[in-house]
């Protein structure tokens, strides 16, 4: 463990020199496929677990018309990593939320195990790369709603043991409109210790700012676009995007008309803006398929990513920036979270804080 250090900036400063993979003279769509084949999409939000809850007799391996996500279309879209949301349907409340989240985790496990040729459950950057090298699509369980913790760090640890990788910090007393309470900060520190990423899409501005300050690991916005282009509660104002860039977090732009607009060009406008304000290291993609929303034209299901990448190439995005957008940034965030967890575990014991003691 002698090589473990808190300062990760050195690692960030040593990227592999980028080797172009697409012929520069080819048509944008052809180049998009070539780039994505080398740098697949790490998709920040997919609602399949919830969609499959009430669906019987499905087969994701051969293709499933009842949903927007299945293995053939994921392969066609060059998706390499998929965050599977554990958010629960409306109406699940109170003491059912913890049990409901256990059931979602169980469903993720069961579905992934039923599709061993296509999917593999992972929770670290190394496992994601390994899955990719084996030709499998890596599935990361998360985000779950903060309410899934039942206000208990013991439950956080139990859910993490079962695979939980991301937690959305909103909708609870300790991460509400007024920002993180002291217990909320302790939750975030324990998440850092475990390697559970914070998702701040839908969190209040105060919670988001406090989380950016407290978290030692990069944070995610799994479903947020640019607020200056399109006002929406989950979209981010420029100052927050700049703050996210400074903290090397990740804003994953959703493919939904409400947040980004109805066309591929609208989505590309948001990606342009986020890249400009937060930086090319801090922008990512979030398909938001099977999460109950509509999608922009030509981006109707998880096979459509090449269209979007072709549009970005058309706009002059460089290959290295696209590689960061699709794959590299998520890899960096996952790797840094692992690193932070290992470093923190040397220093901190599992937290025994109770909400009643800390928040009174």
């Amino acid at each position, binding site marked *: 463990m002698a090589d473990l250090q808190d300062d990760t900036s050195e690692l960030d400063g040593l990227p592999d020199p980028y080797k172009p993979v697409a012929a520069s003279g080819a048509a944008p769509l052809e180049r998009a496929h070539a780039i994505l084949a080398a740098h697949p999409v790490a998709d920040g939000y997919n609602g399949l677990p919830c969609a499959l809850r009430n669906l019987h007799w499905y087969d994701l391996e051969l293709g499933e018309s009842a949903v927007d996500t299945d293995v053939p279309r994921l392969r066609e879209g060059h998706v390499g990593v998929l965050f599977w949301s554990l958010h629960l349907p409306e109406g699940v409340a*109170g003491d*059912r939320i*913890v049990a409901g989240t*256990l*059931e979602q985790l169980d469903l993720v496990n*069961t579905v992934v195990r039923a599709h061993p040729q296509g999917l593999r459950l992972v929770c670290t950057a190394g496992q994601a790369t390994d899955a990719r090298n084996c030709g499998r699509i890596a599935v990361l369980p998360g985000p779950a709603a903060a309410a899934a913790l039942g206000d208990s760090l*013991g439950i956080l640890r*139990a859910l993490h043991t079962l695979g939980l990788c991301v937690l959305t910090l909103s909708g609870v007393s300790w991460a509400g409109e007024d920002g993180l309470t002291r217990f909320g900060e302790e939750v975030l520190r324990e998440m850092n210790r475990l390697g559970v990423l914070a998702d701040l899409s839908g969190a209040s501005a105060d919670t988001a700012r406090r989380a950016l300050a407290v978290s030692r690991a990069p944070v995610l916005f799994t479903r947020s676009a640019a607020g200056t282009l399109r006002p929406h509660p989950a979209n981010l104002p420029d100052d927050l995007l700049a703050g996210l860039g400074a903290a090397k977090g990740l804003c994953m732009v959703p493919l939904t008309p409400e947040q980004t607009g109805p066309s591929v060009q609208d989505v590309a406008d948001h990606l342009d803006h986020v890249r400009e304000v937060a930086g090319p290291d801090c922008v990512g993609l979030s398909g938001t398929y099977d999460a109950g929303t509509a999608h922009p034209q030509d981006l109707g299901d998880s096979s459509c990513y090449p269209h979007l990448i072709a549009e970005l190439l058309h706009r002059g995005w460089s290959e290295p920036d696209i590689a960061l957008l699709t794959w590299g940034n998520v890899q960096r965030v996952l790797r840094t979270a692992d690193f932070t967890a290992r470093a923190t575990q040397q220093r901190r014991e599992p937290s025994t804080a109770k909400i009643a003691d800390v928040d009174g």
Partner: protein
Amino acid sequence: MTSLEEARELLAEFPVVDGHNDLPWALRKQVRYDLDARDIAVHQNAHLHTDIPRLREGGVGAQYWSVYVRSDLPDAVPATLEQIDCVRQLLARYPADLAPALTAADIETARGEGRIASLMGAEGGHSIGCSLGTLRGLYGLGVRYMTLTHNDNNPWADSATDEPGVGGLSAFGREVVREMNRLGMLVDLSHVAATTMRDAMDATSAPVIFSHSSSRAVCDHPRNIPDDVLERLPGNGGVAMVTFVPKFVLQAAVDWTLAADENMRAHGLHHLDTTAEAMKVHRAFEERNPRPVATVSTVADHLDHMREVAGIDHLGIGGDYDGTAFTPDGLGDVSGYPNLIAELLDRGWSKPDLAKLTWQNAVRVLGAAEDVARDLQATRGPSNATIESLDG
């Protein structure tokens, strides 16, 4: 050599696999999981029945830690996760003494390393909230047995200490048993009604356990096992783990408890009331009627009978320490097991028989559940049944 020395020598080779210990609940209630406040690496005689020095003294080689939570509160699933986290924290804290164990092979390995194999058991079907997905979650977290009920009925199984509900196991209850078989989680029939015991033994394809129950023929209490059920254990391959709780094992203590409860009700109080006023009434009763005391010999009587009915291959030990206020003389805490073994030696139990009682039967039954699970998983996927779909 005295029989106590002989007992210790025997336990050094074949230590006790104990079926039930409520240390996690005691830590939750006493110090809300502040493990610094109850460092079990040192003696905690003033607060607990259980700590590592006394487990060592008692010759314990494997322990099922109960992740019990109350069955009369709505937050059973979240609370169970916290109990599981508590056990995991204990394992992380005392790695030289406690070895995480999930399989029979892990238990054997821990014995070879001189560590105490640590397993988990959930005490009551309320811990899964009528959901097979949650059951699989508990298995994933390391839970290796589930008692089908605690003191209250749940929607799919009847408890020994409640009014008849579904009359044993409901259709969903039988599906819970089958899913436990498929996972390799032992079905525990302590606490359940005799009707539930019989239904579960009909439904299961793996051996069952009674993690902490004694014989109803010796002492007539609903928490104990009737002879007709004990008689089925050889066919099933299961293990009945005798418990020490005086109010279950000593007839005089059963009668005394009934009279004490009646006295409370006569004063207009609930029999489990622990308020100051209620305790005053209770103490006055105890002064007039001294509490009968169980002994090592009381427990040995149960084992003698259970052995006669079920056979030596189907016995084990489940002390219920830190889950009971009173204990028999000579079995006051987890250091007491050698006294029980010495008593059985004096009664003529052979060493090979005692090795089965303390170690071999309990290890065998978990291994058998694993074998059944492997077979079932080849032909059966995870069950998606819901209580609504089966019980209507």
